[in-house]
């Protein structure tokens, strides 16, 4: 009996790998288990290799865990690509009709005749997915009725005969691998209560980001399909109109951001969701938004680059672009969500920051977080504080200065339709009234005003704090991360703490502007700091270096850009190597 297991199902894209794993995931949650998934899609629609990984536990999960304890391979490519990435004691299950295992394969392996059984029980090849599902349910010892009920629900629409056929396949699969000694160790303990997940939800990062946008007051979305952000556009298209908002599928990313800026200018809280290549296309208008001081939220669900890159793989390599990308110097806020749950709350925050500071806010997520599903508490919907752009009072309308130079840098704004004054907002350098102006004095003044907004926010972050600042007394080594590596790093830090080893951990959410004093305070007592990122050039390490004095603390960059997220083992190894 074990409390924690990682299962992988892999096979040809379009053949039911993901959907089979999804039903298994749902059955596990219905039985009270916590789940944390990871998906790897091919870039094509059919063919290519798809893999879904489901980690299940009787306890709360925060990372994808280690390699597979059980790998079910539907075809040869699945074996070729994934069979070597097994945890110690792991078992490979494969269909002998569609794959063979090399003679010197080091892990335990067993045949399961999915195709043969499917044909025998139902006459239909596709039933192999149900057999695979049922055999996994049997191996894991999850009470079968949960998965069985889901199978009935799935096929109810297609009529009684189809349901009966699939149940026949299910029952045949249930016992297919029973009794094998090598699988004894794969049985999962029952969770303390079957209703442990009751009232909780299974959501992906793209779903929580979309829900957070709704909660944050988003009422306009314009987007263009791009992997792995398309789901956000689809979600908003399906739901936002019922909330009184509008969604446009634009002809390209430039039109998408242009429409968002127009909508925001006219008073709607606007968002677009894209990935790296789309963000690049938007860069001119991001600068425009900054110059014309129009609030807008741009979600970047990062994928592997550069160029077309690896569209279905993850990476954290758009940071520098998010911070600087545009002509000239244009202040903007960069926020990075740290978990599936956090995507919801950072989406709300993105809108609030955009409104308060009248700046573009780039909200970074990534493919692994966008697509991964996990059990979580329902996102909070009560007592959500929303900020709105500040309007001028009546006295200011006399000689209305849209871009009034203020202490905070933020100028009260009118919205088209409001009476009493009007103004032009322009990408050209302008004076306080918005009229084009190129004098050196005006230029210096207005640039300082725009950047002052960033300084105001940085000061706010220093006093209010942001993200994780975990600095146990006596720790000599620290780890700094950003975005989706948070759960993985936490898991390692907490495990080490349990073993009496204290490692400090800093994981901010607002990456730009940086609260430099806060970062300095974290680094000062440490001998060494590891900056861990899923990219090649260490972008956040560079950003820290440019903005914070490191004095005597040694900085080590730990980078990988494999397209897969860091595992806890890899983080532990990095710490061990540099401790």
């Amino acid at each position, binding site marked *: 009996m074990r409390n924690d297991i990682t299962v992988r199902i892999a096979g040809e894209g379009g053949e039911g790998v993901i959907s089979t794993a999804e039903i298994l995931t749902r059955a596990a949650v219905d039985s009270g288990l916590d789940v944390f998934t990871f998906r790897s899609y091919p870039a094509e629609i059919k063919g290519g290799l798809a893999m879904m990984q489901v980690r299940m536990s009787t306890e709360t999960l925060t990372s994808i865990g280690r390699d597979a304890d059980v790998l079910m391979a539907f075809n040869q490519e699945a074996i070729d690509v994934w069979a070597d990435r097994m945890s110690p004691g792991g078992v490979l299950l494969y269909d002998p009709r569609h794959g063979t295992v090399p003679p010197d394969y080091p892990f335990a392996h067993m045949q399961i005749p999915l195709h043969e059984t499917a044909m025998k029980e139902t006459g239909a090849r596709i039933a192999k997915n149900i057999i695979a599902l049922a055999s996994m349910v049997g191996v894991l010892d999850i009470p079968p009725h949960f998965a069985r009920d889901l199978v009935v629900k799935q096929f109810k629409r297609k009529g009684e005969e189809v349901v009966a056929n699939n149940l026949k396949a299910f029952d045949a699969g249930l016992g297919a691998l029973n009794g094998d000694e090598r699988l004894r160790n794969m049985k999962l303990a029952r969770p303390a209560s079957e209703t442990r997940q009751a009232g909780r939800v299974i959501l992906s990062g793209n779903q929580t980001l979309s*829900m957070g946008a709704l909660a944050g007051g988003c009422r306009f979305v314009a987007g263009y399909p791009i992997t792995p952000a398309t789901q956000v556009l689809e979600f908003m298209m399906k739901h936002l109109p*019922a909330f009184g908002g509008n969604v446009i599928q634009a002809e390209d990313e430039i039109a998408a951001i*242009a429409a968002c800026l127009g909508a925001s200018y006219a008073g709607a809280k606007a968002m677009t969701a894209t990935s790296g290549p789309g963000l690049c296309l938007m860069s001119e208008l991001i600068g425009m938004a900054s110059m014309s001081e129009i609030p807008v939220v741009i979600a970047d669900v990062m994928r592997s680059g550069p160029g077309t890159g690896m569209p279905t793989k993850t990476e954290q390599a758009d940071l520098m672009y998010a911070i600087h990308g545009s002509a000239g110097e244009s202040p903007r806020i960069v926020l990075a969500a740290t978990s599936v749950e956090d995507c919801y709350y950072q989406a709300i925050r993105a809108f609030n920051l955009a409104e308060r500071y009248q700046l573009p806010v780039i909200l970074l997520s990534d493919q692994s977080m966008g697509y991964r599903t996990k059990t979580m508490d329902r996102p909070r919907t009560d007592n959500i504080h929303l900020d709105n752009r500040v309007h001028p009072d009546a006295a200011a309308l006399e000689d209305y200065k849209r871009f009034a130079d203020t202490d905070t840098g933020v100028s009260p704004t009118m919205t*088209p339709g409001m009476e009493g004054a009007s103004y032009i907002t322009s990408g050209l350098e302008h004076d306080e009234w918005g009229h084009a102006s190129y004098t050196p004095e005006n230029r210096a003044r207005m640039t300082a005003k725009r950047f002052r907004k960033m300084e105001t926010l940085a000061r706010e972050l220093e006093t209010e704090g942001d993200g994780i600042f975990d600095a146990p007394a006596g720790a000599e080594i620290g780890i700094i991360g950003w975005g989706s590596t948070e759960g993985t790093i936490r898991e390692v830090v907490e495990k080490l703490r349990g073993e009496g080893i204290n490692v400090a951990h800093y994981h901010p959410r607002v990456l730009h502007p940086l609260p430099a004093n806060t970062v300095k305070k974290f680094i000062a007592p440490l001998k060494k700091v590891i900056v861990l990122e899923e990219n090649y050039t260490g972008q956040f390490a560079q950003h820290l270096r440019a903005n914070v004095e490191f004095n005597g603390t040694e900085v080590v960059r730990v980078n990988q850009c494999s397209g897969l997220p860091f595992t806890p083992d890899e983080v532990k190894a990095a710490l061990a190597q540099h401790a």
Partner: protein
Amino acid sequence: MSEEGILLKPKDYKADVEPIWCPGCGDFGDLAAFTQALAAMQLKTSDICIVSGIGCSGRFSHFIKGYAYHTAHGRAVPTAIGVKTANPKLKVFVVGGDGDGLSIGGGHLPHAARRNPDITYMILDNAIYGLTKGQTSPTSPFGMVTSTSPTGLEDPPLDPLRMFLSYGVGFVARGFSSDVKGVAKLVQAAVEHRGFSIVQLISPCPTFNQVITFDFMKERVVPIPEGHDPTDIDAAFRLALDPDHYYTGVFYRNDRLATMEDKLEAQRKATMDRQPRTLDALISLY
């Protein structure tokens, strides 16, 4: 009507900013015509929103009293669509030149035609890039010598009207900037048409275009003959492609197209029937 109920005159729609155009620029005529049209319709200045692009013509938005967004080169049309979607009560205009609208901005036009927002787009066409000092534009004539066509332009010009008609734009008109009254009427008709309306305004550049001059155009423009049925697309094409006449007036008008606003409203109703309206109900779906 102003907020106090006083009748607004054309000059009441002019901003305090002096135009930066060269003396004799065709855009002056368009500006005058525009203020006349606004006065004829007595629009509230707070309801006016002009989105303009980059170029001499793009500066237009600075010279009108009302809300304006002077955006990046070629992107005024999708920006204006965003404005109109967020607040359909606004009277939204797009103003820009031939380079802004037909070169860098050209890709947005067919999609604007498909969506059909109730927006009026005035393309101030001088067949040259003026602000950058004299390069060819998509409407520059064959053989024209410019700084980027020193041996004479070899590509034929784009035919804007043919393009607009092909895209299915629901209101297509052309005017000539020195006919201020005529342009004012066209602009008003464009505004009154429910849907995406394009008015191509030939506005000669005296500084950089010595081929398409006022005199050159004056000799060639002729009003569309009486009896033209603007709902007849074939007739509209024939007028637009006529090799012997350069017509001005309303070429085509289609009042049967649903507007973007109508369609978004329909989408909202359909969605409200099928999808949750509260966040809690939505989360429970998952």
